């Protein structure tokens, strides 16, 4: 597929003259979702779902989230240059989209980040048949066959009941993981107020305004220590091992991330209760999705490409690693506020 090319700024669609999730400011950017390694500031023109535009606006402020913006609903087709462009749900976070492009009878799909597990806070991933599929590979190793998130929530709630005098502080990324965790807790029947670190509250309020109810949320920063005892506190991953968490009454440090699947990773983070909850496709979902698109050509953006490309070769698919420097997983140990 020669009309999609890799440039220093990022993945470029030549006949439409736009970039997808570019790493540097460009004239026209199509953004898959609001995580800061995909949505970067100061593009001249931005096309994205209305939810992603709202998230970018909240995170970057007026002006930096694209000088002009084009909201595009899932499934709404527009022409950009000679390209037919539309967005399909990616199931990753609220507003996350796959970018679908058609040109001269060929179809290419760029997935951004995605998952196949149901998520009450966003629209489910939609398989779009295509000739070229660009996939992520965050959990691109066969050891990542992740458990059911309901099981992990059960683990947390069991621990909360077993240690009623302690405060469970759960590290979770501010966009997506936090709101999904809250929704999963509510679905599991937990309706007590949840205490939130200040860095998490604005995004939760935005989710609620976009129609995702999250129940009663309170600020942990202004709360009296004693009020939070026995409760669940949510905080950015960088805060759970920090002074901030130590001021909580008898904290039990938990972390919600796909990386918690491997013991060494959980141990290294000093986590007492690892919760294996991921917003990325696991190994089975990666392979299953690549196969389901029917694409003959698979490009792999960020993560562990080697194992995935090897496995595709065994499935007679042509895989290629796109080494896009700058994409990371939001759960990796990146200080809050940095691109992640």
């Amino acid at each position, binding site marked *: 597929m020669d009309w999609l090319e890799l440039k220093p700024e990022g993945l470029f669609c030549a006949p439409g003259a736009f970039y997808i999730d570019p790493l540097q400011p460009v004239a026209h950017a199509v953004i898959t979702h609001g995580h800061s390694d995909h949505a970067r500031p100061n593009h001249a023109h931005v096309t994205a779902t209305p939810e992603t535009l709202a998230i970018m606006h909240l995170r970057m402020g007026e002006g930096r989230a694209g000088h002009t913006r084009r909201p595009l609903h899932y499934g709404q087709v527009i022409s950009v240059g000679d390209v037919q462009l539309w967005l399909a749900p990616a199931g990753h976070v609220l507003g996350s989209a796959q970018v679908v492009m058609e040109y001269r009878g060929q179809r290419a799909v760029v997935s951004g980040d995605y998952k196949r597990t149901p998520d009450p806070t966003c629209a489910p991933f939609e398989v779009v048949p295509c000739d070229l599929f660009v996939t992520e590979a965050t959990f691109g190793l*066969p050891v990542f*066959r992740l458990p059911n998130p309901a099981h992990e929530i059960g683990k947390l709630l069991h621990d909360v009941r077993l*240690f009623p005098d302690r405060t469970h502080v759960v590290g979770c990324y501010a966009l997506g993981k936090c709101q999904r965790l809250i929704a999963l807790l509510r679905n599991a029947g937990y309706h007590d107020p949840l205490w939130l670190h200040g860095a998490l509250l604005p995004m939760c309020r935005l989710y609620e305004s976009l129609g995702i109810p999250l129940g009663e949320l309170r600020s942990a920063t202004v709360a009296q220590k004693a009020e939070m005892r026995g409760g669940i506190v949510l905080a950015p991953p960088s805060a759970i091992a920090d002074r901030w968490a130590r001021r909580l009454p008898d904290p039990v440090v938990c972390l919600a991330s796909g990386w918690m699947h491997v013991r060494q990773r959980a141990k290294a983070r000093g986590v007492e209760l690892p919760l294996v909850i991921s917003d990325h496709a696991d190994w089975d979902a990666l392979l299953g999705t690549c196969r389901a698109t029917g694409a003959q050509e698979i490009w792999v953006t960020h993560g562990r490409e080697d194992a995935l490309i090897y496995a595709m070769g065994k499935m007679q698919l042509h895989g290629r690693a796109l080494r896009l420097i700058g994409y990371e997983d939001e759960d990796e140990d990146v200080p809050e506020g940095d691109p992640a």
Partner: protein
Amino acid sequence: MIEFATLLERLAFTPSRTMKLALLKEYFTMAPDPDRGYALAAMAGSLSFAAAKPAMLRALAMERIDPELFALSYDYVGDLAETVALIWRPEAGQSGDVPAPSLSEVVHTLERLPKAEVPDVIRGWLDTCDASSRYALLKLITGSLRVGASARLAKTALANIASLSPDDIEEVWHGLEPPYEALFAWIEGKAPKPDAKDAPVFCPPMLAQPLENIDLTALNPTDWRAEWKWDGIRVQLVSTAQGERVYTRTAEDIGKAFPDILAIMQDLGSNVVLDGELLIVHGTTVAPFADLQQRLNRKAPTASMLRDMPAGIRLYDILFEDGEDLRSLPFDTRRQRLESWHARLNPSRMILSELIPFTHFGDLAKLRDAARSEGIEG
């Protein structure tokens, strides 16, 4: 297996002793017999199998996964059992239909499983377990299971359930065998205290107190007895009709490392529990602690170690004699019993610890300081 694996996982990540205790209490209360007994055995370090070698785990994994993908995964995870546990893909239709084996089913099967059948049985188990149970299972069958709780902590948890002290559990412990059903029945008030009369069990001893840490003015010297503290380790020698044991103060059985002491006790044929200091002794000279350390470091001593570093005992106290519990008797009475026992049997390589006469605690402090300069441990 699932409950046990869940407990193991939680213990492995929890540094807090109080939380470990609560987790153990919950497990011992919820888990059925005999599973909980085998879990307790695992914590006491007495549940170990060498049913499988790493090569077998690898071979099993290769049946289900491409070698290249396995290698990439193992590189990333860094632990063989964990890699296999995570990578294992249950045969279609297996998971969910057949329940995972219980811990006791695993233990009972492994106990009498012919070697040739091991791979088939393990493959079947892996197919029915979840990832964390597979991990626990693989660690168990390769003899590398580590439990994030000591035997002492497990006993403390049991004691808490029944409002006993850990020493109460310790007192009956060595008369019991996995899966400890009599112990759990007692803890839960369903059966009397297990009778350990004939078994060579450990009895929690009186411990020495450093003089520096005690407010001596509050004590009456005539109520106290002083003896030298030797530079060895405190042990309890237990000899009954069922056998001889050498226990450390923490109830660890170190008899295998000291067959010379066991042999002396066997020769005596006396039904007795003694408290003393284990030392390396040449004639009347006590060897440096480093020599004893060498003996302690070996599971079983070599012939030359037995010849060059012979063990001996300085006796402090007698706790049982011919089934009679002497522990409630005053110390001076027990001392008389010890002296007459010693005079009667004249055991080789066992010397009475000398009582140091004193009228004021100050005398002891002076003696201690003099001894320190002469090289006796304080």
